[in-house]
């Protein structure tokens, strides 16, 4: 049997399954719908990385596939004798190196944007516990735990992240944010959510038996709703 006939259906089957999986995946994920400027920049960087590396991926897998199909042993066709070509080796060292330098440009720009915290409108403190999150709003004197975080839309929020017991990680995919909550350290992140709604996340660092149940829910509301909510919370305390 011709090897081409044997491999093609398998390849198509695999590709089809992967494509089906991709189409069946839920909308609302960061990859499709980023809701902060940082998440949007991360997606743009991801597309650039895909564009640059796709060239090498297709080239390498393509050569492999063609070689496998073309150079099957046949009687009377001896293998080639060459096994050195310094010029070729220099080319395949220099071009990927150049690609890496090019790719590091947007990566470093986005990184700097992520980690430079702008002047914030709302400051919050995020404290990890086994196995729930505690949120504090020092401006308003509000503290609560095990409830959704509420923040106003279109405002810059600065979060100080730490932990009371083991290492946790505060991760909201749609915001482009993941920050470890280390005991004894305070880490800083910021985000500015552009659309109201409810966003899901969960702890991303193994923190014990119920790690899988350490969810994060963020309700992003209009500034008016936020003010009403914070007033109620103040009274509640």
């Amino acid at each position, binding site marked *: 049997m011709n090897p081409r006939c044997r491999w093609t259906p398998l390849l198509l089957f695999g590709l089809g399954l992967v494509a089906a999986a991709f189409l069946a995946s839920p909308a609302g*994920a960061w990859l499709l719908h980023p809701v902060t400027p940082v998440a949007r920049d991360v997606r743009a960087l991801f597309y650039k990385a895909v564009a640059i590396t796709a060239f090498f991926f297709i080239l390498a897998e393509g050569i492999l596939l063609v070689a496998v199909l073309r150079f099957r042993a046949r009687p009377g066709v001896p293998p080639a004798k060459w096994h050195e070509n310094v010029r070729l080796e220099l080319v395949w060292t220099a071009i990927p190196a150049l690609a890496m330098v090019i790719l590091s440009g947007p990566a470093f720009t986005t990184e700097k944007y992520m980690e430079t915290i702008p002047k914030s409108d709302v400051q919050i403190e995020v404290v990890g516990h086994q196995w729930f999150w505690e949120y504090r709003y020092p401006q308003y004197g509000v503290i609560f735990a095990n409830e959704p975080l509420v923040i106003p839309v279109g405002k810059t929020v600065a979060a100080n992240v730490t932990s009371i*017991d083991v290492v946790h990680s505060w991760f909201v995919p749609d915001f482009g944010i993941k920050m470890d909550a280390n005991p004894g350290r305070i880490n800083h992140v910021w985000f500015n959510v552009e659309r109201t709604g409810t966003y899901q996340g969960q702890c991303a660092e193994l923190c014990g038996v119920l790690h899988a149940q350490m969810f994060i829910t963020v309700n992003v509301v209009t500034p008016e709703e936020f003010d009403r909510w914070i007033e109620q919370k103040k009274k509640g305390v």
Partner: protein
Amino acid sequence: MEAGTIAARPISTHETAPAHPKARTGILKWLLTTDHKLIGVMYIWLAFFFFAVAGIFAMVMRAQLSAPGLHVVAPEVYNQIMSLHGTFMVFFFTIPIMAGIANYVVPIQIGARDMAFPRLNAVSFWLLIPAGLFMLVSLFLKSGSAAAGWTSYPPLTSRQFSPGAGMDLWILGLHLAGASSILGGINFVVTVLNLRAPGMSMLKMPMFCWNVIITQTIILFATPVLAGALTMLLTDRMFGTAFFQAQAGGDPVLWQHLFWFYSHPAVYIMVLPGMGMVSQILPAFSGKHLFGYKGMVLATAGIGFIGYMVWGHHMFATGMSPGLRQFFSFASMVIAVPTGIKIWSWLATIWGGSIRFKTPMLFALGFIALFIIGGITGVWLALVPFDVQVHDTYFVVAHLHYVLFGGSLMSIMAGIYYWFPKMSGKLYNEVAGKVHFWLTFIGMNLTFMPMHLMGMLGMPRRIYTYRPEFAGLNHIASLGAAILGLGMLIFALNMLLSLWRGRPSPPDPWAHEDQNRTLEWTVSSPPPPENFHTIPVMR
């Protein structure tokens, strides 16, 4: 260079026989041996035992994750088998089996009668038995085994949060495995530097030997750091020190630096020997010389060197200082260049060749196809903003399995099929081998390709259950795992039946026209004790 002189003296095995009693049979032959071939084979058996255990753990995990909200195992049990799956696959399968194959093959390939320190070689192997037993026994403790992942980040692993003895047994087991690695490292480096046959200069060595000596050098420099970190963790737990305890002035992030200073180079410890095997197998089955031998040596050394400077990319979300993140990010991208050199050189090796699709060759080609994917997602992960997005999600699980399953395991399988006739003196069943390859290749992609998407959609790793929106992708991954399991059963049956009833193998079952073959194929299968009647002289 006394050892070199001895090895060069042309003596027959018959003359040396009295000094090396060979008459032992039965169990004593194995228990008391210092023969590198027997020790190599024992390494391989032990590694496959742990591969089976860790593989069953993987199947249980995929069963638990095949749908959201299942109760195949309890959460605490899931965390234990997840932790031991990683620990066993890394420290008790991949690293020992690479050591086992190298133990068998390297002395013959360089034309030596044995390793430089045969008794030390036996010590390296036998240390692994108590090491593995500590881990296995901990599974039966009431308080359970270690359950903090193979990375064991404190404070989760401190006495306060993991009070059980399982954690202490994990630390002790890993300590012994590390000691075994270090002793093996010394042995391999001394062997390759001193026991090469006359005329075999370093640049005439088979590529596999180069990869082994570079790997063993990495082990020598990196493993003591792991040993130090483990000791600190143990004294934190046992004697109340506070290296990693924030409340007493320590820092949990210090563990992460020390752990990854070892465990990133460990990725190269696990993959470089496999790359060496592939560099032997591709020329053997395409009828050509390895392309760009010197470039390959330089690239391997480059990976070994730069591999020490990239550990921080495991820690981009810890709140590391910005300048440090940029350094680790760029170094991690740079390591793609020597890795690329190897991939291009393998492609140039098969290009224009006359390819015979035997099972070892299929696994070697599968290795290239999958390792390219792992390499490319590795470049993405070097970009700090993208890494932070997918760090500690299933994207990383997908990436690391494309490197360690697609890379290490595929090359191990290639090596095992390639040298099985040499080690056992029997031929395996080629059809079953090919079926094993295709089930592995398809099952591997079905299992791990969807995990990239799970991670990008925000599914964290190391969770025993997940939100319903990830269900579709997890169904596919679990189906893939079942196919993988079936493939491995066929592999086990093929190997065991072939050992029992396989047809005898000639000295070189892969012989083909006038190829330049490495030394192990010039002696009988299996090779005689002490390998060579007269030490070969290389031109």
